[in-house]
């Protein structure tokens, strides 16, 4: 892998090289400015930081362990594989790190109405939990197709007190849910906070969500140094919008000897419409307020995506990933549906851990990578979520 020193060309706030920015309707410029200002103020406020740390520890269950998967390591034969156990968090995934941060920020900003988008429902559930705990009102946009596929999460959100709005426009999936949430925000800017679930969208979201997720990498860095006495050879994480990956990458960006791998959903194949891998199979474009890599046709229409894991099903990707890829700091690869299912089965049976299908993509690539490395090396896989939500789909493919 081509290695650069830590990319310092983050030219100005909200830009990652040429990527990122604020490609939004004029009506959102003022609320984005207000959000950036509030975020900057509270991210430096010791009492806000303390309050958030309390919620993360006592409500969400941080810190999460860094677990040496010794059976998997032995099975693969190569580098020691460590799992950062975000799957053990309340809500079952890393999403709660971000929703607690933003919901607390919204509360400080005096906004009581929170809107969010969700694909598989994980961010919707994490939003509903944070809002219930903090006494805020949550409304979640979800594609009607996704609602059919993820009935249990729809019920969870409702039970947690959130209102779920079915989205019938476009492809009726995550990208349309984001569009619809943006339309709601344009309409209700004065009293509404848009709680975006990944490192996507206009500035300041990619930066803010990354900062809230960077707790993963901060913990992992300390833990690996304590457990191994040295830094790992590589970090591996799955990339949909890219929040769990950027969250674990960030504490290692300066460490040029640590290779960073982002794993995109290879789906059935890399043909158009058969995957969700914008960095590998897409090209530069503007979607949902950001300049980034986008799966699109030759005239710039955004393509539909397809992956076995709904959480990776997005045709765009966080602009910081586009930057890390083009700067040569991180490498992006794909894992197919079939490979992800095999990895799910391996981790379940060898370690007694059922990963989310999203995280199974990272496990799959990490197994290949570990085999190519020496037994003195170690790698960390971000196990971003647990697999309970996916069992219905998995049972169809892997009957018992």
């Amino acid at each position, binding site marked *: 892998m081509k290695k650069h020193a830590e990319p310092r060309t983050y030219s100005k706030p909200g830009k990652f090289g040429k990527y990122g920015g604020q490609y939004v309707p004029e009506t959102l410029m003022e*609320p984005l400015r207000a959000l950036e200002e509030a975020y900057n103020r509270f991210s430096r406020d010791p009492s806000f930081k303390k309050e958030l740390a309390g919620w993360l520890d006592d409500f969400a269950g941080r810190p999460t362990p860094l677990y040496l998967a010794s059976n998997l390591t032995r099975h693969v034969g190569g580098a020691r594989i460590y799992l950062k156990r975000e799957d053990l968090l309340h809500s079952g995934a890393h999403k709660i790190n971000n929703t607690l941060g933003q919901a607390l920020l919204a509360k400080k900003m005096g906004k009581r109405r929170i809107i969010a988008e969700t694909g598989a429902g994980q961010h919707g559930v994490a939003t509903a939990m944070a809002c219930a705990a903090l006494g805020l009102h949550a409304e979640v946009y979800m594609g009607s197709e996704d609602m059919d596929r993820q009935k249990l999460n729809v019920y969870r959100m409702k039970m947690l007190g959130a209102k779920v709005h079915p989205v019938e426009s476009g492809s009726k999936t995550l*990208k349309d849910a984001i569009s619809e949430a943006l*339309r709601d925000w*344009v309409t209700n*800017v004065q009293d509404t906070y848009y709680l975006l679930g990944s490192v996507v969208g206009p500035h300041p979201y990619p930066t803010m969500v990354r900062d809230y997720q960077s707790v993963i990498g901060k913990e992992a860095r300390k833990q690996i140094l304590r457990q191994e006495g040295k830094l790992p050879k590589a970090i591996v994480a799955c990339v949909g919008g890219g929040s769990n990956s950027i969250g674990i990458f960030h504490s290692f960006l300066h460490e040029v000897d640590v290779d960073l791998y982002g794993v995109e959903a290879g789906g059935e194949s890399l043909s158009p419409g058969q995957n969700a891998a914008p960095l590998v199979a897409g090209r530069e474009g*503007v979607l949902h307020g950001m300049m980034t890599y986008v799966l*699109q046709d030759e*005239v*710039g*229409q955004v393509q539909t995506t397809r992956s076995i894991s709904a959480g990776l099903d997005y045709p765009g990707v966080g602009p910081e990933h586009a930057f890390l890829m083009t700067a040569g700091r991180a490498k992006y690869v794909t894992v197919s549906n079939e490979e992800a299912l095999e990895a799910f089965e391996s981790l379940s049976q060898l370690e007694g851990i059922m990963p989310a299908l999203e995280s199974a993509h990272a496990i799959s690539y990490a197994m290949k990578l570990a085999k190519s490395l020496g037994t003195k090396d170690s790698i960390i896989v971000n196990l971003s979520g647990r697999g309970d939500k996916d069992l219905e789909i998995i049972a169809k493919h892997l009957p018992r």
Partner: protein
Amino acid sequence: MPNTSHDDDRIEAKFGELRGLREGALIAYLTGGDPDPKTFLANSTALIEGGADIVEIGIPFSDPIADGPVIQASSMRALSNGTTPLRILDMIRELSTEFPVPFVVLSYYNPILAMGLGRFLQKARESGVDGIVVPDLPVEESEEFRNLSLKHNVDTIYLAAPNTSRTRLRTVLDKSKGFLYLVSLYGVTGPRDSLSPQALEAVRAVKSLARGKIPVSVGFGISQPEHVSAVIQSGADGAIVGSALVRIVGNHLDDPSDAETQLKKTVQSLKEATRLSSN
């Protein structure tokens, strides 16, 4: 160099001409290629025959975040029959050869990027496009785009919203050419029964900052003659009507010739409302 057979600054000239007549401009919008190329051309002709002063054509996009259900549906209709930006520019060329009204194109940024900024703007100019609106490209992100637009003589029409600060408004007014597109409300495009409470106040605030240097046209939620006359009487130089016309197209998919009649009649009554002397 851009096509010189086409006069420059036709938008500005049109506003000047209408000022002399004590009229506001009626800017009528349709989505390009909706529901099919032939019907779209006939409908556009109906707008012009009905008296539209400027015709605004939308390039459909898969993810139109600033648009409400009416224009979303029209975009899907147009895309599903294979409409592309180049085909729309070709259709505008047909129209602009036949009719002398100024043409404005509205496009989200990605289809423009996909074609290449320079190539898109050059093609647009050659097809008779006078101005361009990009709803997801605020001034901060558009330096290169604006420079190329100036080079190709396509007016950059920026948007202002009810919550645009005075400082930003000065920049937006300064960077806009042709006219400033004032969004009348908090929300997406779509017909509304009544004018938003912020609309007239926003018109007066923007007009006082514009100081006559650039025309101000009001859009979003302007669907009836009363809305048009209210914004023109408050000092706006133009009124933009989109969803109310696109809805007529969507409601007459089975009888396109009826759509033409309806569009022409609707545009006539909207145009009538721009005449200050008769109000």
